[in-house]
């Protein structure tokens, strides 16, 4: 349900005023149920009704709900299209938060100044066809958590559906010892947090838009600072708390800062050749700026002397792999490391206490690239057109999860082994950086370490397309609007670092590489 009023005021041509105020109520309710049986004598849809199934009667159902109440108002003002201002205030309430914290107030404001409309710019810098300065500041709220996140919850569960691979969470027990009429209790599934409140993100933007040479050359430069505070997180907990120790809390602050550059040039030559070039480059830095004691465990580190504070939310905590042990002497002279042996990964004793342990881990990558970039090229001439899109990431040290499978025979037990293992270290192949073959992972080489950190920079030809449109004169004769044929390829080539051992540096989570796709097409418009 939403209601709003809108007021417009046009005060004599130059002043434009616009005011909107509204309120909104969202009430979400979802309920599901199912029933199933198996062993149908016939799979014919006219036969297979539930009553016809002979075995495994099963059914289930669940429901969930949330509500949002919002008030908002927006005030827009512009003076002579030169000075622009906008102010927004929202007050949002969510059923997901604690009773006294359901509402949050989120103001925002922006101003713009179209310099190119000013006489002093027109006079002194007439090559600017457009020039605008922008500034914005605003807060937004986040309530993206479980619907009953602030509540303490208890549920009954007769028994876990997959008793093989999950520990059973059941609450029923054969107290009578006769396999029937099992009474059941309740288990806690979540702890209450009546203080739970909105996560707030405050963003500040500064930007300039420009156009030169009659807007043939256009572009923009943006700088942003985005700070999220009271970040919502489901807190990991000490085992002594028992099951259902889960608790949503507000905690850390994370700051993102970055630049975005965009520049484009488009032109048409006298001979009818049109072309365009658009490039963009963006860079950001991410940092956890505040980490209250309560939520330290939600963000990695060792909970003691190393926390994520000051590091990126993508940063990975782990050991520093320092090549392979080459012989028994190196092993005996090295720091104590459970499982150390020739051909095994040597981990650095960072604190120099003579043993490799918990306190020899550090942040081994920030997981943030130096910059992202893209380049769009287009041209057209007498019915022919070509479009090229290149995209890249530079300076990203990423965790290559595929290496678990490609470099070890002992970690993903029972799976196919990778080809790289053919070049594994052995006493006669000591130059290899791949650990020696073993069926038993005594050295715990699956641990987070720099062995898995690789340069995942890449440049991809995302898209190249060549097309030809039949001349309009020809097309109209056969009563069509347009006919175009084209050939296209996506991801035709990738330039990547030699250091990256997986097939595709864009996919570091051991899933399928992004496919190369070839397409030919015919567009006909009537």
């Amino acid at each position, binding site marked *: 349900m939403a209601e709003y009023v809108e007021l417009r005021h046009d005060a004599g041509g130059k002043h434009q005023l616009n005011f909107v105020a509204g309120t909104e109520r969202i009430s979400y309710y979802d309920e599901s149920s199912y029933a199933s049986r198996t062993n149908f004598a016939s799979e014919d849809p006219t036969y297979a009704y539930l009553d016809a199934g002979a075995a495994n009667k099963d059914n289930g159902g669940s429901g969930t709900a949330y509500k949002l109440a919002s008030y908002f108002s927006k005030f827009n003002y512009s003076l002579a299209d030169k000075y622009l201002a906008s102010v927004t205030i929202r007050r949002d309430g969510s059923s997901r938060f604690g009773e006294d914290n359901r509402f949050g107030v989120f103001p925002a404001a922006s101003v713009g100044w179209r310099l190119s409309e000013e006489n002093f710019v027109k006079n002194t810098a007439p090559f600017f066809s457009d020039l605008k300065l922008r500034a914005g500041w605003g807060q937004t709220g986040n309530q993206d958590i479980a619907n*009953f996140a602030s509540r303490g919850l208890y549920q009954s569960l007769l028994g876990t559906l997959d008793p093989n691979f999950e520990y059973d969470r059941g609450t029923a027990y054969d107290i009578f010892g006769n396999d029937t009429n099992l009474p059941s209790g309740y288990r806690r599934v979540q702890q209450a947090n009546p203080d739970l409140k909105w996560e707030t993100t405050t963003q500040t933007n500064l930007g300039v838009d420009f156009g030169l040479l009659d807007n043939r050359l256009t572009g923009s430069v943006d700088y942003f600072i985005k700070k999220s505070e009271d970040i919502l997180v489901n807190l990991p907990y000490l085992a002594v708390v*028992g099951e259902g120790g889960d608790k949503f809390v507000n905690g850390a602050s994370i700051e993102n800062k970055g630049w975005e550059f965009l520049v484009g040039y488009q032109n048409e030559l006298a001979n009818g050749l049109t072309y365009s070039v658009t490039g963009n480059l963006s860079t950001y830095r991410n940092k956890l700026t505040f980490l209250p004691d309560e939520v330290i465990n939600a963000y990695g580190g060792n909970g003691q002397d190393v926390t994520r504070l000051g590091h990126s939310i993508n940063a990975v905590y782990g050991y520093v792999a320092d090549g392979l042990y080459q012989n028994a002497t190196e092993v005996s002279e090295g720091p104590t490391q459970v499982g150390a042996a020739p051909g095994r990964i040597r981990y650095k004793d960072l604190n120099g206490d003579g043993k490799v342990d918990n306190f020899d881990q550090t942040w081994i990558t920030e997981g943030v690239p130096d910059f992202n970039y893209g380049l769009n090229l287009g041209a057209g001439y007498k019915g022919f057109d070509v479009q090229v899109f290149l995209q890249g990431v530079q300076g990203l040290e990423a965790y290559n999860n595929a290496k678990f499978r490609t470099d070890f025979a002992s970690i993903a037990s029972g799976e196919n082994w990778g080809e790289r293992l053919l070049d594994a270290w052995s006493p006669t192949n000591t130059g290899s950086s791949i650990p020696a073959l073993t069926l038993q992972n005594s050295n715990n080489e699956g641990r987070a370490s720099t062995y898995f950190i690789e340069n995942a920079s890449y440049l991809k030809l995302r898209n190249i397309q060549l097309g030809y449109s039949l001349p309009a004169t020809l097309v109209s004769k056969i009563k069509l609007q347009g006919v175009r044929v084209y050939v296209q390829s996506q991801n035709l080539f990738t330039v990547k670092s030699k250091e990256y051992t997986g097939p595709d540096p864009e996919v570091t989570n051991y899933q399928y590489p992004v496919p190369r796709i070839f397409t030919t097409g015919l567009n006909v418009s009537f």
Partner: protein
Amino acid sequence: MKILKTSALAISLLALSSGCNDKEFLNVQPTGALSDDQLNTAANIEKQVIATYSQLGNDVYRAPYTSLWPYGNVRAGDAYKGGNGTADVDAFHFYETFTFNRVDVGNTDELWFLIYIGISRANDALRRLETINATAMPNKAIRQGEMRFLRGHFYFMLKELFKRVPYIDETIPTEQYASVSNVALSNDELWTKIADDFRFAVANLPDTQPEIGRANKSAAQAYLAKTLLFQAYVQSDNNAVTSVDQAKLQEVVTLTNQVIASGKYSLHSDFATNFLTAGDNGVESVFAIQFSRNDGTPKGRTDRGNALNYPMNPDYGCCGFHQPSQNLVNAFKTDAQGLPQFETFNNSDLSAPADFQTNTVDPRLDHSVGIPSHPYKYSPSFIFETSWLRDQNTYGVYMSMKENVLPSDPSFQKTPPFMSSSKNWTIIRYADVLLWKAEALIELNRPAEALPIVNQIRQRAQNSTARLKTTTGANISNYRIGQYSAGVWNQAYARQALRFERRLEFALEGQRFFDLVRWGIAADYLNTYFEKEKTKRQHLKDARFTRGRDEYLPIPLNQINFSKGLYQQNPGW
């Protein structure tokens, strides 16, 4: 100004139309769940008691805290890990060989967590029981006794596995859990806390319970006796046994006498009954986990703690873990008097089929160990073959048997890939009560009183050959078992005999390692075992027990980190 006035009016109109009932509007009750407060009624407290019992058996193959087979048997040289080579659940291989065990093995962390779930359920019930008055809940004290019994059980397991653990009871609010260190109590104080729970249970539980699954007074007396027996062996900080507390031993004798005097328990005439579904809640079962199937739950509430331990023949399927060691099989050899060969049993191997005829053996061998060409699980025509083995080259030819049931047993439950059953898992068997008493008497230097008890156990074993027959009705192996005579039965001899008897009687029942640590002999015993066994089994080549460290699992590193360094690691780790 006109504009401002209009907008103010508009905002107030909006507020009037929907603003005043926001509080009510946004108050959405959780669906499909109850709140903490709703569970404080007598009926719901009863259910929280059930939920605590339920956690007795909520097991998973990775951290089997019910059967304790990797911790009690594999670490004790009674069984190899088994399965598909050393990498198959490699944590158990690290437990078995000690050398490569680490503080960050995930299975150890999960084990710790699963047991604390039991403690948290018990504390949840106890917290509610404390608030209700006895008029609203007349059996309040009994239920409190049951919950403290179960909490004592969970803490006992943590204690024997980890030594120093955070002790949290129902009086501590959850917000303060993070400030309770695992070394807040001394080793001895922690034992006393556990004993206190059982003392409360003894004082408040009835002699018998209307429901067979509930703990009664005798079960509490028995568990208290077990606790005091462990506590009696005083341990130093580096796990060495420095003295044995005679007063505690005396109390063990008193308590076990009370259990015996209750007249409710006796030894099954046939040892086999303990390991058959038909023996569930029989006369020898003092306290057991009640498993069930076809019980209205999705997959049954079956024994997951032994889910990996069935052989690999078509009748079962998976997974061939928990393989008795050659050393254990050899231990069942008997001498001309039918007595164990304390010093010499491991000088030669029982392995070829003929060996089980040319030597004499204790009948409990064929109750405990699946042996090629021998009938499996008392079924004369169901012959254990080497083709049932998963990885014979690594782990040899024996399989465990006590925990398993026949494929035709009504309690058998296939949940591929793993196998299970609804046969009870016994926590306290009456034979254990008898041998605790015998052990206490021997350590009190009253060995003569222990002799008839040990012989009672052996007499029953001797009588237990009726099910150990081939299809022709002949005995499977050449059994000879005799009783100890008073002539040589001094304290030192009795101690040796008692310790050997426990090994044979409780082989593969999850106890042995904790016995070795209690007696303070784990390091010497296991390093002697490895020295010989590694010449037969390649997977033990790096095995070595580090004295002062390997008596206990490490405190899981995750928990130390989550406690922000409050928890202290066990010595040596």
